[in-house]
């Protein structure tokens, strides 16, 4: 479904990704771990087409399409979703207008008619419940005045609305208390279908306890240096990253 080959990318002229190879099949959950600065967020930003990042080498294929040739909004329509590490506040743009614009753009891309106001609001109500997002929040401007936890919940709510097939959760667990983490993770699990794939970027095992990754990758110096099963994450939680460095002689 997603195939990354020899991906090199720079930001501000500095090379961060130095040859990433990663293949993700339908329904698979891949955890991406690594120290700060290893390139985890760079990889997620490159995948969704953030204009500040430049791909200098390599390719990304998504459902048979050349992902790098698509604009950020086309990538979204194709089913790619990034739960932002730091969701942006957009004063003056209401959640309702924002979601309606996003959903109807996707429907247009799929050749469907825009959703009528009644059906749209009904969908908002239904999906909001999955992440226990307060009605008051969806009537406000996008993320404006939301707490850290509410912003993360709002990301999963948007995921619920757009029904992506490839989700990137970039430190969705950061800044969440135990209860909020459970709501967000369980929300994600409820939304998953057998075809939903995900890249989960995290520093901690606790999110992975809920999401149960099929593979765990360790990113160091812009490359994937180690891949294992769920047990690798547990080992990292206990021992940190130094032992991996030592074993690889980095």
């Amino acid at each position, binding site marked *: 479904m997603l195939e990354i080959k020899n991906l090199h990318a720079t930001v501000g002229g500095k090379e961060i990704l130095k040859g990433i190879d990663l293949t993700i099949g339908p329904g698979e959950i891949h955890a991406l771990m690594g120290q700060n600065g290893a390139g985890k967020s760079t990889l997620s930003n490159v995948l*969704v*087409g*953030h*204009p500040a990042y430049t791909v200098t080498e390599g390719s990304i294929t998504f459902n048979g399409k050349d992902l790098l040739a698509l*604009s*950020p*909004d086309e*990538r*979204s*329509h194709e089913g790619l*979703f*990034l739960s*932002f590490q730091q*969701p*942006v*506040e*957009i*004063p*003056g*743009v209401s959640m309702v*207008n*924002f979601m309606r*614009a*996003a*959903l109807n*753009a*996707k429907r247009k*891309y799929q050749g469907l008619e825009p959703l009528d106001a009644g059906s749209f609001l009904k969908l908002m109500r239904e999906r909001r419940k999955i992440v226990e997002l307060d009605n008051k929040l969806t009537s406000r*401007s*996008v993320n404006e005045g939301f707490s850290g936890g509410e912003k993360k919940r709002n990301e999963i709510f*948007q995921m619920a609305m*757009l029904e992506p097939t490839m989700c990137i959760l970039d430190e969705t667990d950061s800044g969440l208390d135990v209860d909020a983490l459970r709501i967000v993770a369980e929300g994600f699990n409820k939304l998953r279908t057998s075809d939903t794939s995900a890249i989960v970027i995290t520093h901690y095992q606790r999110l992975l306890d809920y999401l149960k990754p099929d593979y765990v990758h360790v990113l160091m110096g812009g490359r994937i240096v180690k891949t294992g099963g769920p047990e690798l994450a547990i080992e990292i939680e206990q021992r940190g990253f130094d032992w991996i460095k030592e074993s690889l002689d980095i």
Partner: protein
Amino acid sequence: MKDISQYLELFRTERDLIDAHSVPALNALRDEAAAAFERMGFPSKKVERYRYTDVATAFAPNYGLNLSRLHIPVNPYEAFRCDIPNLSTSVYFVVNDSLYKDALPKATLPKGVIVDSLNALSMLDEVQAVHSPFSIFHSEDSLTALNSMLAQDALLIYIRAGVRAERPIQVVNILRSAVPLMVNRKVRIVAEAGAEVRLLFCDHAADDQDFLATQVMEVSVGEGAHVELYELEETHARCHRFANLYADVAAGGHLTHATLTLTNGLTRNQTDVCLSGKEASVNLLGCAITDGQQHVDNNTLIDHRAPGCTSRELYKYVVDEQSEGAFAGRILVREQAGQTESQETNANLVCTPEARIWTQPMLEIYADDVQCSHGSTVGQLNDEALFYMRQRGISESEARLLLKQAFASEVLNHITLEPLRDRLHYLIDKRFRGELNHCRTCRLCNKS
């Protein structure tokens, strides 16, 4: 001096004609106004308040004037049908600079509310008994003086003490001419003590022609009176508007004034508000959306002359393409104006490298114990917000549009007249989509 000569010459040679088609109250002002105009000339860019607009160039062409007050054939109801849904207003039409008597609102105004042209003498008597109709006819402003030198009629809106005009009063200014035309409008608004009124002025141009409009509006807000005055301009690239407003707010009175420029050519709005009685308050709001070669200059002065007064000022501009916006707002807190609360904000969104914004918030405080703030920002759309929206599937153009709308709509949120606010949200959305000239209900727009 050659710039003003064509106007002085016109005045001197056509003086009899001007007077013959006007009223004594206006004729009495002319000599002094002409002398003031001649003394001041057109303000150059060296004149502080006019530094952002080239006045002489705008007044240089040879415009015609309808000095004999020939009836302009127009049926405003036929020509103009842009209404505000869910807002029941008493609508008056001013064609060029004359109140259109053939199409007055059918519903009668409440007792104590008068809307009429100065030529209706009976009503002048009533108003004049209490208020001098024009105390400001040249002041220190040459365009006000020019307006007083040439204006042949005035619209008077009078609300007697304690009367609440339930239904908003809407005045639609229509510019209509087959040749380049200059019009000189005068408006006098008197809300006596405890009176309440909401007024909406809409500027339109019915013909694709060069227009030059001067307007002088004088507003008296009595003790404890409440006046909301909204001015909406939707003209076109060949229209020049020079509007000077002078308002006085007595003790405990409140004035809200909003200037919304959606489409225009060159516009300069000068708004002077004097808070003359204690605990008077004013809200000045402005929103300008410009592209192409549009030019919008808002120049304000709020003069705190009494203690305990409040002023709030919010002007927002979205300038695109090669257009220009200017804002200069001076707040003067005099020595006797203790316990003043004042807040001035000007925020600007500059969409292209060619668009220009000049911003000049000014605060002068001579009193102790005041709370005042002023500030301005000039910026571009937030790239991170733009990207966030695109990640969710919203196209770049739509995302830009939503962000611009969000920026401009902050001004609208201060408008308490809900149907008007909704309508303005709708118009601003249309404006950003470039669809403003295609409104469904308006035959005028559909024509173009």
